[in-house]
């Protein structure tokens, strides 16, 4: 034991000295693939959820990887441990002269408001938010691009699925109760739930929608507990809007033999109970933002009503809006494939109505 440890130490010292020599020969940089534009440097700063959040941080990173591959940009990532890391992490990339620094998440609005002022010549993008001052009041920044999503539209589509199934008594235990588990009562989460609630009630006016918040985006046991309690109250369809935590709700539904609805990405693989998923293409948005900074190309129909159009030549833009119409949000059919025809019809009708502007799902939970 004793000698073994000495040997390990010796080994460690040798390795420590030897490895860098080997590694020095093969320094790696991102790249490859089909390079279409100039090589720019993109820094991605996650919020405290980290890259493995199975949610938007991860999706944003997927978008960055795609951009590295397709656009030949160089991408680097910093994961934030605490909220006080946001400023130094954003600053790190900006000070290093990165062309675009992407802040992932609503939580980083204040930090971005501060850093984007310090580096007026660096491009910034933020997912789910816009720069604010310390008092959380929005501040206009010419160098910041906000990437917003109409989550309520995706929520409405899956809400229609749940509502029609419930009305048809085609859910596992038809009770007229469905539910949603949110990670936290913040706008991106509540927009999903608002649409879900609205559409389900439209499909089945007698339906009861339970809403619970886990106050957590990572720990699956928290969400499975809340989902289980909702099942106890009669719910037989649960919509998770809580990232990695919400996976616990999907799993709990599987164990209870009821339906679940995935969020953000296509989550059909997580559990057999997932009938559909509400999609929020953070990866696409990230990619589009990078591409815009690189070559000025704009995503289709990105513009919200009342917003000034982007200027491609100066890369000046304040907001990209991703909605059903431009494919930035949507839904995927998973383990209830195909959907019953009346469900599919109702979903398609609503989808078209929203795209056409005939229906507007609410942004806040009633």
């Amino acid at each position, binding site marked *: 034991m004793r000698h073994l440890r000495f040997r390990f130490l010796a080994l460690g010292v040798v390795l*420590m000295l030897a*490895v860098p020599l080997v590694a020095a020969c093969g320094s790696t940089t991102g790249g490859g693939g089909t390079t279409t534009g100039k090589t720019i440097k993109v820094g991605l700063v996650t919020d405290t959820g980290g890259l493995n959040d199975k949610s938007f941080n991860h999706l944003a990173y997927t978008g960055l990887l795609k951009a590295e591959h397709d656009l030949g940009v160089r991408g680097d990532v910093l994961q934030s*441990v605490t909220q006080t890391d946001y400023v130094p992490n954003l*600053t790190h990339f900006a000070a290093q002269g990165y062309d675009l620094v992407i802040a992932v998440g609503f939580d980083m609005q204040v930090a971005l408001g501060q850093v984007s002022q310090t580096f007026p010549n660096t491009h910034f993008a933020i997912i789910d938010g816009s720069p604010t001052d310390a008092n959380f009041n929005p501040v206009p920044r010419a160098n910041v691009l906000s990437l917003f999503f109409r989550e309520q539209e995706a929520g409405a589509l899956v809400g229609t699925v749940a509502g029609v199934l419930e009305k048809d008594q085609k859910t596992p235990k038809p009770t007229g109760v469905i539910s949603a588990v949110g990670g936290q009562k913040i706008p991106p989460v509540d927009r999903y739930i608002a649409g879900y609630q609205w559409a389900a009630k439209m499909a089945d006016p007698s339906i009861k929608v339970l809403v619970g918040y886990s106050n957590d985006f990572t720990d699956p046991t928290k969400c499975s507990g809340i989902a289980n309690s909702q099942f106890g109250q009669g719910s037989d369809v649960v919509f998770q809007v809580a990232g990695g935590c919400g996976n616990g709700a999907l799993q709990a539904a599987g164990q209870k033999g009821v339906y679940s609805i995935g969020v953000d990405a296509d989550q059909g693989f997580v559990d057999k109970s997932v009938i559909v998923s509400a999609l929020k293409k953070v990866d696409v948005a990230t990619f589009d933002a990078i591409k815009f900074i690189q070559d000025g190309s704009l995503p289709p129909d990105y513009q919200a009503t009342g917003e000034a159009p982007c200027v491609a030549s100066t890369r000046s833009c304040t907001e990209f809006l991703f909605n059903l119409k431009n494919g930035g949000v949507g839904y995927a059919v998973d383990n209830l494939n195909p959907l019953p025809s009346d469900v599919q019809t109702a979903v398609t009708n609503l989808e078209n109505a929203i795209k056409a502007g005939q229906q507007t799902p609410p942004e806040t939970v009633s």
Partner: protein
Amino acid sequence: MATPSAPTTERTASADTPTPLSRVIAYLRPMGTPLGSVLFAFVVGAIVVVATRGNALLAYESLACGGFGIFCQNGENTALQLSNTLVFTTPLILTGLAVAVAFRAGLFNIGAEGQLVMGAIAAAVVGIKLGTWPALILLPSVLIAGTLAGAAYGGLAGVLKAVTGAHEVVTTIMLNYVALWASRYLIIGGPLQAPGAFNASPPVAAGAQLPRLVPLNNNLLFGLPQSVFTAYTGIFVSLFGAAIYFFIMRRTALGYEITAVGQSQRAARYAGISVRRTIVVTMLISGAFAGLAGAVVLSGLSHSLVDTYFQDTTGFDAIAVSLLGQNTAIGVVLAAILFGALHAGGQVMEADAQISHNLVFVLEALVLFSLAANFLRTFKFRLPAFGRSPTQPAELEAQDVVVGAADEPG
């Protein structure tokens, strides 16, 4: 419960024969164990990195780059990295002192984090609600409020220990959770939530904010806009705290008594020191340092009360800081700089070497293991010439020792 042996190197130098050489050794000796522990941690950490197919040298180079702005591969700005280190170091000094003063009295304050949060809450309340006060009064009030809140919270654990004997380790762990949930309650749907924010309070008034070291504007300094240098004058508060700690421990009867209680409660009682009162006072001081740390961070850096639920580790890093600093004022400052640099460096390591910043926690734990187990001592005993049993008792009290013999192992 054995309390960590806290050598009182500050009060007594162990120079038995005052030759010049031995004097030099005597000065260096207190540094030996901490430096050895850090070395041990880095060697084992390198093994961990290499074993998981990482590049240890690159990892450490980028750590050094991030911490001190040296060995940088990607042109990181030295001044910026030093500023970042200073930001981490500032509260670590204070929480390190908090844990250290408790260690001196033989108490283990795992609750620095909770006390820090309580300090931040109090500071935020004062900084927001009394925001109209002039800065000259407001800023000190904010810091004092944090100090008092932390002191009260630490003192609670002290009172529980003194009155009911409840072990401070367990009570402070529980108090950590209570504090963190309380802060969540206040800022998420609670009375301190800022309009427009979802898990943060409004910022404290400008007059409640500790100024930065360099003025907040976009003039260039070291090639960067000045506003990137987030290092703030809180560092002076921390250094002042260290000076106070030094003064209390070395120059006051209170410090004498705190250490006496930590060394031997029986001797303390014999000397007319009220052990219970000293425990409570120690925990008050300990909590005060930690609470001040919370106030300083709030006032100088975050400005708003934010949700730090176990993401912020300042209160836990403090344990490593105080142990590595051997519970001395200067030691705590040096150790806080080291750990501040490691945390600041973790960011660069992640970006440049693609090694998770969590390696820093592994290194921190290794330092703790090494210090606690005192592996270095055992190495020394294994030198072949000694030929003694390695299980040599540390205390010879109950041993059959020939009286009158000089030099027992200390």
